[in-house]
């Protein structure tokens, strides 16, 4: 596996993403919504409420960063994989002296890195907003805490990897970008549901829950890796991909 080859594929896709306003704005909008707009909205709506209540609401927002990390690849990967199909550029790409693994890794990085960058930027904005509020009200910086670190540093990347893998599989079955996004959205829905339910029903300490989630996501990611790798074979792509 030559990582530099995968990087060439990924950087090309970054160029395509930059040129595609729909993806570009989606990547920018998500961190603004989850990292700034949503916490600000809660703070405004709950203005005057007891600090404990506000804190418990804000605590639930942490998991949104994992949700965001799972959602963004549905937008990027659908263009990255199905876009190649639509432009019929897979054959010349596959004709280059690049292995299937290098191409797959490059494509996955192209979906993973911008998604995670957006997630980190969103989380940074979120920390700034919450800390401004908490310092003003309690004289302490509430974030980052262990739970946010676990979610952004562990759960979110794993959810993102899982989503990318799911999108590779989805992309092999459809030949329309919108259909890929819709199907990709449906496929990542269970991931989002697990994350949301886990945070809503606090049946175990939040930090432990984040670790359990990470474990589950890691197992699912490894299983899906083999499926997506089997899907992304030259032969398969040229003869069976729709």
């Amino acid at each position, binding site marked *: 596996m030559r990582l530099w080859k995968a990087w060439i594929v990924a950087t090309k896709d970054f160029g395509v993403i930059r040129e595609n306003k729909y993806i570009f704005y989606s990547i920018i909008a998500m961190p603004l919504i989850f990292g700034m707009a949503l916490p600000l909205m809660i703070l405004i709506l709950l203005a005057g409420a007891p600090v404990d209540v506000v804190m418990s609401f804000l605590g639930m927002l942490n998991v949104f960063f994992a949700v965001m990390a799972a959602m963004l690849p549905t937008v990027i990967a659908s263009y990255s994989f199905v876009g190649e199909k639509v432009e019929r550029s897979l054959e010349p790409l596959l*004709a280059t002296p690049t292995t299937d693994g290098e191409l797959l890794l490059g494509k996955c990085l192209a979906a993973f890195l911008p998604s995670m960058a957006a997630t980190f930027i969103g989380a940074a904005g979120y920390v700034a907003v919450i800390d401004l509020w908490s310092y003003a009200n309690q004289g302490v910086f509430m974030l980052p805490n262990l739970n946010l670190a676990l979610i952004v540093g562990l759960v979110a990347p794993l959810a993102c990897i899982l989503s990318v893998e799911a999108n590779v599989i989805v992309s092999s079955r459809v030949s329309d970008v919108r259909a890929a996004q819709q199907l990709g959205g449906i496929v990542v829905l269970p991931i989002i549901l697990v994350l949301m339910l886990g945070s809503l029903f606090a049946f175990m300490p939040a930090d432990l829950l984040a670790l359990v989630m990470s474990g589950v996501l890691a197992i699912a990611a490894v299983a899906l890796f083999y499926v997506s790798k089997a899907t992304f074979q030259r032969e398969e792509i040229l003869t069976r991909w729709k």
Partner: protein
Amino acid sequence: MIETENLTRRFGKLTAVENLTLKVEEGEVFGFLGPNAAGKTTTIRMLCCLIAKTSGKARIGDFSVDDPEDCLKIRKMVGLLPGDVGLYDGLSAYKNLDFYGKLYEVSPERREDKIKQLLSLLGIWERRDDLVGTFSKGTKQKIAIARALIHDPKLLFLDEPTANLDPEASKTVRDFVLDLKKEKRTIFINTHNLDEAERLCDRIGIIKTRLLTIGSPGSLARGLQARKTVIHLRHVNPKLLAAVEKLRAVKDARIADNKLILDMDDPERDNPEVVRTIVEAGGSVQYVTELRSTLEDVYLKMIRETEDQ
């Protein structure tokens, strides 16, 4: 440069290519002629290591398409122009070529020179920074050809290089292929454009799942039927036909309108005697022409024969 032996590819019950045995020499321009779904693209894909063969052997230069390591080397030494141009519409012409140059491991300096050389040659250097999506079909095809040449491949596979192009764009592409031919590159062209095959190729193979025939355009046409002499007369009558039929050189003769159509082994040697005989028998010869079978005749005959089987 290309050598196959009983190369076969099946997709389930469907046989796309059956027992293909052929040899293409270095520097040769080889044309693969056949109708749609004849196995032309499948053959190219097998030779470029894009899909696996079901059975048989295939080698490109010193490398076998069976060995995954060799496949990387094969893909590095061949250039492919697929049936669909497959360029990135959202990237500029330059960036498209630069991306492929990197994947083909062309050094940055060489890449820059090569892109400039190819785009200038194809007359699109001035538009190098325009998005490919803004180009016409013909221009996109030119860029796709430039992409196939970015790494200076020894062997070039062109799958229907002028399909869907207008006559002017087709001519530009054909002229470019002729220039490449002068550079002594080995070129393998898939086409169902007979005229193009005749103009560009040193040898032609006609395929319909199986390889039906192979040879130079001239030899294929000659092989179909003997050359015929057509003698245009003011009036034709059975007496003239009888006179020429008596000649030993004439293997077959028939009348069509005011013409006598004669089948002979060596028209250059025998035509003077035939004309003399006709004149002596009272015929008035207006002119003498040659009737040759064309590549189209050969192609249609071969394809119809397979359909009949």
